[in-house]
């Protein structure tokens, strides 16, 4: 029975390669430019600077870089079949836990969309990165203080900010026909300092 099973796998693999030698996995070609970009040293450097500015740790930056490249590579190249996955699932899982994403295709149902597997920990890191990088992260007051505070002399205007002239609402008639007095009040400050 074992030999029959192995033979079955070999046959299916042969069929799979024959199929993918002629037909690109869906979406793979469109991933190639992205793969080139994410492998480009300048892009990678910019990517790392962007993560660093959002206070990701060095370790997390390296893992995200590896992970992004791995997911993109998996999406761009030939998938593993379900049969191959079944043949040695432990090895596949071991590979996934080393941040190597894996594209899986159902060779028996060509119209079924391929999937990409990553480890649970990598998925958690990806989701965290997406949330942290798509939302702006604003520094806290104390961080702003460290950035802008100085011990030089304060300006008099900052020590005693001048009051504005009291706002004066024009009458309806003034608003319709124009009145320089109200316009002046809008512009100027109440007093000099």
């Amino acid at each position, binding site marked *: 029975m074992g030999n029959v099973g192995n033979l079955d796998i070999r046959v299916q693999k042969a069929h799979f390669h024959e199929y993918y030698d002629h037909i690109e996995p869906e979406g793979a070609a469109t991933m190639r430019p992205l793969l080139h970009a994410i492998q480009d040293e300048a892009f990678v450097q910019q990517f790392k600077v962007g993560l660093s500015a959002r206070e990701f740790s060095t370790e997390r930056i390296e893992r995200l870089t590896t992970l992004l490249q791995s997911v993109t590579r998996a999406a761009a190249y030939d998938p593993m079949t379900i049969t191959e996955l079944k043949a040695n699932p432990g090895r596949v899982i071991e590979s996934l836990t080393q941040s190597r994403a894996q594209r899986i295709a159902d060779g028996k149902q060509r119209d079924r969309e391929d999937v990409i597997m990553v480890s649970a920990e990598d998925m958690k890191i990806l989701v965290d990165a997406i949330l942290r990088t798509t*939302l702006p992260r604003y520094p806290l007051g104390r961080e702003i203080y460290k950035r802008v505070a100085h011990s030089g002399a304060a300006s008099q205007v900052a020590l005693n900010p001048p009051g504005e002239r009291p*706002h004066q609402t024009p009458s309806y008639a003034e608003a319709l026909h124009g009145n320089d007095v109200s316009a002046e009040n*809008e512009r100027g400050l109440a007093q000099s300092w």
Partner: protein
Amino acid sequence: VVILDPPTTLQLADGNSDLPLLRFLEGSSEPVALTAPGIAYAADVIATLEGPQRRQLENRLREMVEKAAPAYEGGLFAPVPLYHFLEFGRAEARVFSDLRVALDVMGDRMPGALSIQSYTIANVTDLPIVLLDTQSAREQLDALIQAGIHMQTIWIS
């Protein structure tokens, strides 16, 4: 997030560590929001100065404006904003007159248009506004409260 009113925006542009706003920021765990009227006030006051002090404050204010971003901007390659930036927009324009009418009781001590606009932004966004603790500012807030207009405030001195 805390909103700076016009005078505290001017103090941030100055940056002297002894100013009330800077002392407040030193111990604050809140991001800071600048407002369009606050920036306009600070720029207006700075424009009245002369010499190197004016240039220094103009440069600092320019950097503040450049480092401020509307809340919707994000993404890995977007510049990291230092401040929120709140506009005086459509919602504020609709309620401005409510606040102005509430402040009518102050008569000649009515705040200026830019201050009322800042209060309006704080009212619409329901974010706390940082105010210098002065008698006139207290009176203004009392007038708004008496009219039933809610505003969260942080008093600094």
